[in-house]
Structure formats: structure tokens, C-alpha cells
């Protein structure tokens, strides 16, 4: 994690603020900073999204490829995550500097998406045992302002929502070999269902209290945080994975608090994200007229 230096007095101020349920920027412990979202802004990716959460800036691109399914799971497609920490975010990421953080993010995403209940791998299947889609989810961290896990998972989900897979028809050839024909029409495509796609919620422990959406300064003050991945199924929030970050340990009661808070927040975020994605799609339509992008 990008290192932010803080003096003892500043830490004390943040700590007391958390105790009072009134943080440095006026938020309560359960509040998120405003986010800014755009999907489909990378024209040469199958799906893309950019999410900005205060100073955290994430760009996600989804690339598709046809691959052979794993023999153990012949009906499943494949997902592959890649996180790149740009040296634009902080000079510490230069060279190999960001690889530890990137690895941590990849692992927590893989962990969250691992269950077939959290992500329906069957939708990526073309011909069982022979051909399937492989999605490369490339995540670029352009700026670090705290709470990377949440921002990355929200952006990944938005990019998956935006992903368009070309429609594929299979024709049988001799000797049981099948041939795939990909539709020529770029607008003839299928979408991926994202209802169950998990979101990560970082629940950060500062002092004796837990809070969500920590800023970079608050992350420095926390000894341990729990990343809770929340998957929605039939309007109910399910846990699809957790892991702890930071050096500290957690008491059992705190852990239960974290899970409860994470699930509640995850459900709220998921609803909000789905609503905004649908709204954007309605307003933009299938053929995107213009991209807002980074300027303005």
C-alpha cells in the first residue's frame, strides 16, 4: 500500500473522530465517498469501466478469447484477473514496486469469484468440453486514495456488465469436430449476467470501531481490516469469501461485526451499482454516441 506519513497527533485526531462517528470529512462510519462511473469508454476492449472513488481511480478492460475448458470443469468458462499498479498512482509503484499489492488484489478477486454460485461460469461455455470463452479482466490502478479493494471490485463488476460477447454459432463438421462461426454484426452479441457477481467491501478497524470506505489516511491508522466479498442471490446477500489485510488480529466479536457490516453495505452497494448501470445503459443506448472520458 502506498505509504502516507502521519504524525501521532493526526492519528489521534482521526481515532477520536471515528469514536465520535464523525470522520475527518464529515462522514459517519457507514458512509462512502461519492463515486463517478463510466462504462464502455475503451473502444477496443469488449467491455470496460472507469470508477473514481474520491482520489482512487480505476480503469478496467475486459478482453475475450476462445479457449479450451479445463478437463475437470468441462462446462465452465474461464476468468483471469490482472492488476497493474501504474507508477502514475505513486512513485513507489515504479518497476516491481506495486506487484505485492497487485498480487493481493488478484488473489482476493479470484477468491471472491471462485465459487460457481458467485459467478456463473456456465454462461461462458460454448461447446462443453471443447470450447469456452476466456475473459481477461485487466485492472489498471491510476490513482490511490484508499479503499482499493472496493473500488476495484465495483469497477470489475461494471466492466463485466458492459462486456459484449459476439454471438457464436457452431456447425458440425465431419468426425465430430465442430467449427465456430462468429457473427459479423458487431451489435449482435450476448451479455453476461452480473446479478451474482461479488463485490468486495473493506471493513477497517480503527480503535475499537469498524468502518467502511477508509481514506488513505485512515488506512494508516488501522491495524487490521477485513475484506468481505458479498454476492447477491435472489435478493439476498451471501458471503463468497473473506480475507484479512494489515498486520493485526481480530477478536471474534469484532469479526462478526465486520461480517455483518460488510454484508449490509455490500447489499446496498450492489443495488446502487445495478441501478446506476441500468440507468446509464438506458440513457446511452447500445451505440454509444460519445465518451466523457478523463477530461472535463
Amino acid at each position, binding site marked *: 500500500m502506498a505509504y502516507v*506519513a*502521519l*504524525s*501521532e*497527533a*493526526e492519528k*489521534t*485526531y482521526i481515532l*477520536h*473522530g471515528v469514536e*465520535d462517528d*464523525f*470522520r*475527518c*470529512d*464529515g*462522514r*459517519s462510519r*457507514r*458512509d*462512502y*465517498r*461519492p*463515486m*463517478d*462511473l*463510466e462504462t464502455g*469508454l475503451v473502444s477496443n476492449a469488449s467491455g470496460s469501466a*472507469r470508477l473514481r472513488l*474520491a482520489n482512487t481511480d480505476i480503469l478496467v478492460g475486459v478482453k475475450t478469447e476462445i479457449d479450451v475448458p479445463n478437463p475437470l470443469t468441462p462446462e465452465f468458462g474461464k476468468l483471469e484477473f490482472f492488476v497493474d499498479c501504474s507508477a502514475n498512482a505513486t512513485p513507489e509503484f515504479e518497476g516491481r514496486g506495486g506487484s505485492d499489492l497487485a498480487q493481493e488484489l488478484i488473489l482476493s478477486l479470484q477468491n471472491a469469484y471462485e465459487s460457481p454460485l458467485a459467478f456463473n461460469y456456465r454462461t461462458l461455455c460454448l461447446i462443453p468440453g471443447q470450447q469456452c470463452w476466456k475473459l481477461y479482466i485487466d485492472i489498471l490502478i491510476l490513482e490511490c486514495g484508499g479503499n482499493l479493494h472496493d473500488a476495484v471490485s*465495483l469497477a470489475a463488476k461494471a466492466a463485466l456488465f458492459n462486456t459484449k460477447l459476439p454471438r457464436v454459432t457452431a456447425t458440425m463438421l465431419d468426425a465430430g469436430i465442430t467449427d465456430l462461426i462468429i457473427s459479423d454484426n458487431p451489435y449482435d452479441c450476448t451479455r453476461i449476467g452480473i446479478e451474482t457477481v461479488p463485490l468486495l467491501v473493506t471493513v477497517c478497524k480503527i480503535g475499537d470501531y469498524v468502518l*467502511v470506505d477508509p481514506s488513505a489516511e485512515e488506512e494508516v491508522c488501522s491495524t487490521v481490516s477485513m475484506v468481505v466479498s458479498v454476492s447477491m442471490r435472489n435478493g439476498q446477500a451471501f458471503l463468497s469469501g473473506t480475507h484479512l489485510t494489515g498486520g493485526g488480529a481480530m477478536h471474534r466479536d469484532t469479526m462478526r461485526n465486520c461480517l455483518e457490516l460488510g454484508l*449490509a*453495505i455490500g447489499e*446496498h*452497494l450492489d443495488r*446502487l*451499482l445495478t441501478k*446506476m448501470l441500468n*440507468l*446509464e445503459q438506458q*440513457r*446511452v443506448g447500445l451505440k454509444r454516441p460519445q465518451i*466523457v*472520458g478523463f477530461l*472535463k
Partner: protein
Amino acid sequence: MSTNAAIDLALDRVDWRDLAAQTEEQPRVYTPGEVLMPEAGFMRGHGTFVEDENIKSSVAGVIQKVNKLISVRPLKSRYVGEIGDVVVARVSEVQQKRWRVDTNSRLDSILLLSSVNLPGGELRRRSAEDEQMMRRYLDEGDLISAEVQNIFEEGSLSLYTRSLKYGKLSQGILVKVFPALVKRRKMHFHNLPCGASVILGNNGYIWISPTKGQEEEGGEGGFAQNLNEHVPRADREVIARLRNSILALAKCKLMIYDTSIQYAYEESLRYEAHELLQQNAIYDIGQQTQGRLRDADE
């Protein structure tokens, strides 16, 4: 307890250029490599270079002419220090007889052990014990307010805190803005009427803290910290609101000084403190403050 979360669409993003369009006189912004004027008869200053007998801009910014000296002042830049500036700085390293501090300038600045007030008398020689105690006075990460004493040849700054108003900062919030947005004034320490103090560092670091009582101020040579003191909720609300107002001013590219902060704070009272993070509220505050500042000028 309810959760406040908001996702805005990029389609609805506020266009910050609208604010600038409301001022009558818009300065011309030169981009790097753009021809400013022919070299003949002019001298090139900071932010310019000569190519093909033309003076060209090497940074993006506005032109400044002093007689025949042409310079370009960049819009965004690191802090370029001047002697006598008030700065807020963070200690990044403790060294032999000096501290290395970050002042948002291109090079780290220096605070010499001989340019701080040590506890127990102003005029006393710095002994070897003092040198061993340096980490007790200022440790890595500590924030200080200081004044620029000298500028070295390579451009790094030497600071001093030998006045009771400077020294180590205690509880509060640091806000970072572009150095160009902080207006140079006589006073950079303000006790605002809303009940908080701000230090407007010329280097773009702004310190907001609860207003201290008279007797506490500057005691102990500026090394005391009130770590056990719990800042009351009312003060916190004022400070959070001030922080968000100052960031709103910076986002709207408005100059930051006591009057503009006071106006922005008054305009912000229509919102809850956490609502001030939203772009529409920021835009509204920027617009209102800009209008009031213009009225005050006339």
C-alpha cells in the same frame, strides 16, 4: 444507522469550465512549446526557452511581463520558495544536526537544529545531548509550521521555527492544494470566526485545527502536543466543514485566503458536512463564493 453511498454517472459530471467562463477577463494560457514572442529585444525568464529565435513556453501557464523580462507562471507546479514565506511541512528524516522536511517543493527542505527553539531558554548553545534528543523534539511524520529562512543555490529551502508562533502542530487536519492557489498575504495564521484556526502555508499545505486558548499558545517552545485531549464534536464539525469548503475552493480553482474561506464556509452551511463531497454541492459553493468575492471587489 443508514449508509450514504452515491455513484454518479460520468454523463452527469459537472463541467468545471463553466465556472471559469463566468469571469469577464480570461487569461490566455500558453502550452509548452508555444511561441510567446520573437527573441529580439526581450529577456527570457522562468518557464521559457529560446528556439529558432523565438521565446517559447516550457510549461503550461500564463504569461508575465516585467519590462523586458518574459516569464510563464505554471498553473500546476511544485512549490517555489521565497524567503519569508510561511510553510507547513512534514518531517521526513532525522539527520545529524538537522531535519529533512517535505515542503512540496522539488527538493526536500532543511530545518537545522540551530534554527529551532529548544525548550528551556532561547539563547543557549546546542549541545551533544540536544543532538541525541532530536527525535524527541521532532520525529518522522511530524508536522511543523515554519518560515523560509534561506534558499540554497540548488533551490532547496532552509526553514526556521525560532518564533513562538511556529513549531510542531498538534491535532487537526492537513489539506493539500496547489501552491499557486494560496494567496500571498501579510497574515497566514487565522483564527476564523467560525471557531477554528487555519494556517495557510504558501506551499499549498493548509493546516486546520481547533482554536487554542491564549495561555496554551506557544508554550514549551512549540513542542507540546495535546494527545490526550479529545476534540469535542462541535469543533470537529466546524473543522470537517472547513476542510471540505477549502477543497471545494481548490476544486473550483478559486484563490484561497481568509475572506474566500469565510465566504465558502458560510455558503456551505446550507449543506450537511458530508454532502460537501458531492460535485454539485462543490460547484454551488464555488459559484456562490465567486459571486460574493466579485461583489466585494466592486
